């Protein structure tokens, strides 16, 4: 058995990471995705430095619906706010929602999938029945009814962890409805991993179930979780943008979807104000595309079966 001779020395791990990076960065899609994503992450990190504070109807700097000019690079919206300013601040909101929702989804999916796969038996049956429900019911449809009801219960005022309640609710609802896909993959991977000798060895050495799952199973699941996590982010952006477009976002912390919703309500499309709706849409497209490209490249890197097929 090769496992018994492998030493997880720091150098071996560093070598493995280096090899992984070489293969991963060899994909053109991964390079494009990473560069694009880095750009948006930097923009989202320091919106204030780049374009100043978020403009509102009160401190708007321009005229109504002015086409792009040297003063307003992306034009202005229906109340005279600079579109570039809105889009840059929107990057922060949109990425925060998508990434936090993904974290919730990955934690839930991994926990449920790993528990079901590791313990098997009745726990497996019931957890998978739960997973099947969320697998069948799309996140968007569930979020569409759950979000307004939860908002009504909580109220729309105040802030939770620096986020407006509606955004907080959207994050939690997307996170809690989009984990089924991850849980299925993690479970099937766990089923095959738990039969391997290093798990038996850990058990004989006296490790508890929890410790086996966290210290031995989880590190081996990271590739699958990573590759699918990137796709979960893309899905979360799609759901968030659609929900915000239908008016479930928050105008005080506008995401790209909320900006599109405001543009739609102001009749930007029929007024020919393409700059109002072009910029947020292109941003959504570029960010989700980068996550899909990164996810596909990760999948290709980790999955030898897919490497055969160009």
């Amino acid at each position, binding site marked *: 058995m090769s496992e018994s001779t492998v030493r997880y020395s720091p150098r071996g791990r560093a070598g493995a990471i280096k090899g992984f990076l070489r293969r991963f960065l060899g994909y053109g899609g991964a390079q494009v995705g990473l560069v694009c994503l880095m750009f948006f992450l930097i923009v989202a990190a320091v919106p204030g430095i780049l374009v100043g504070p978020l403009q509102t109807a009160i401190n708007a700097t321009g005229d109504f619906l002015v086409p792009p000019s040297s003063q307003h690079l992306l034009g202005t919206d229906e109340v005279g706010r600079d579109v570039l300013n809105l889009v840059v601040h929107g990057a922060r909101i949109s990425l925060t929602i998508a990434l936090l929702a993904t974290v919730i989804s990955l934690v839930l999916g991994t926990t449920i999938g790993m528990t079901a796969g590791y313990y098997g038996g009745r726990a497996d049956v019931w957890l998978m*029945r739960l997973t*099947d*429900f969320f697998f*069948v*019911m*799309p*996140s*968007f*449809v569930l979020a*569409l*009814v*759950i979000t*307004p*009801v939860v908002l*009504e*219960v909580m109220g729309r005022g105040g802030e939770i962890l620096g986020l407006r309640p509606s955004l907080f609710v959207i994050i939690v609802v997307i996170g809690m409805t989009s984990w089924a896909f991850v849980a299925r993959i993690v479970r099937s991977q766990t089923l095959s991993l738990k039969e391997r000798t290093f798990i038996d060895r850990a058990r004989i050495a006296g490790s508890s179930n929890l410790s086996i799952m966290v210290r031995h199973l989880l590190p081996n699941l990271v590739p699958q979780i990573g590759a699918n996590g990137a796709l979960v982010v*893309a899905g979360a952006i*799609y*759901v968030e*943008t*659609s929900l915000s*477009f*239908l*008016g*479930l976002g928050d105008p005080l912390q506008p995401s790209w*979807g909320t900006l*599109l919703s405001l*543009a*739609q309500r102001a009749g*930007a*499309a*029929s*007024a*020919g104000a*393409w700059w109002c*709706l*072009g910029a947020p*849409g292109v941003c*959504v*497209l570029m960010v*989700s*595309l980068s996550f*899909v*490209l990164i996810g596909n490249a990760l999948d290709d890197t980790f999955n030898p079966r897919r490497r*055969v*097929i*160009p």
Partner: protein
Amino acid sequence: MSRRIFRIVFRALGTLLTVAILNFILFRIVPGDPAQLLLAGARTSVTVQQMDAQRARWGLDRPLFPDQVVDYLSATLHGDLGYSFKFRGRPVADLILERLPATIVLVGLAQMIAILCGVLFGIYAGWRRGGAVDRIATGASMALYTMPSFWLAMVLVVIFSTGLGWLPGYGIYSPGANIGSTDRFLDYLRHLVLPVTALALGLIGQYVVVARAAMSEVVTEDYMVTARAKGLTNGQMLMRHAFRNAMLPVVTLITLNLGYVVAGAITVEAVFAWPGIGGLTVEALNARDYPVLQGIFLLLGASIVLANLIADLAYGLLDPRVRQ
């Protein structure tokens, strides 16, 4: 075989029941006494007796479980989905049935176009991997399916409706069109073009990606080598061996991605003020018309469960390995 069908149908019914119960719970955690909501429009002040009478009339004085749940489920089974807040107390089922045809036309046409184009391009791209068609189709379809359909709809309106003035970008009929004439039908078709295109383009992206991936796997299978060794032409290999096997994942996707189609349809309808379920959803959301929202959720849930049921059964018919 029959055991498999029984299990699939049983599971679908279980999911449907969960949707209905979730619906019930969600509706009951909305703050405010339903009886108060019902009497909110009363002109004079309401006495405690009147309030109690309302509670008794609507069964709100009985325990939540099991009485009210059973009442709710039985009413739902009889097609009683409650009454709308916004539309002057009209039955929710009537509202939904009234709006359903417009959505079915939109989604049906978009699906048909998307399946035809998506499968053709995807199969061809997978068959001739690395060729010009493959590169363009793969790149374009990735962009198309990550793009929110409603944004695509807005872009189409800006270009073809506001910019070029070729097609209408709003509503289902032009104002003042003659009722019952052929002109009116043509007018309807012209109004359909942009919404259907917006919805179909996103779907085409998905079908191309899946059909291509399926085809790419099929062509590396041993039976394709055998087929070539037997001396079959490319066309015969494609039609007799590759196409049928590559269709399996595509058929599953067509039935399973109804959730994506629904998200697309609802938001695209919002862009065009299309008088379908999507338009109704937006109106219900804005007015916090919960009964309507719950009715729509039930409708979507039921259609998704049905689509899954069809997918599972169809898979058994298409793939003999599943039947055993």
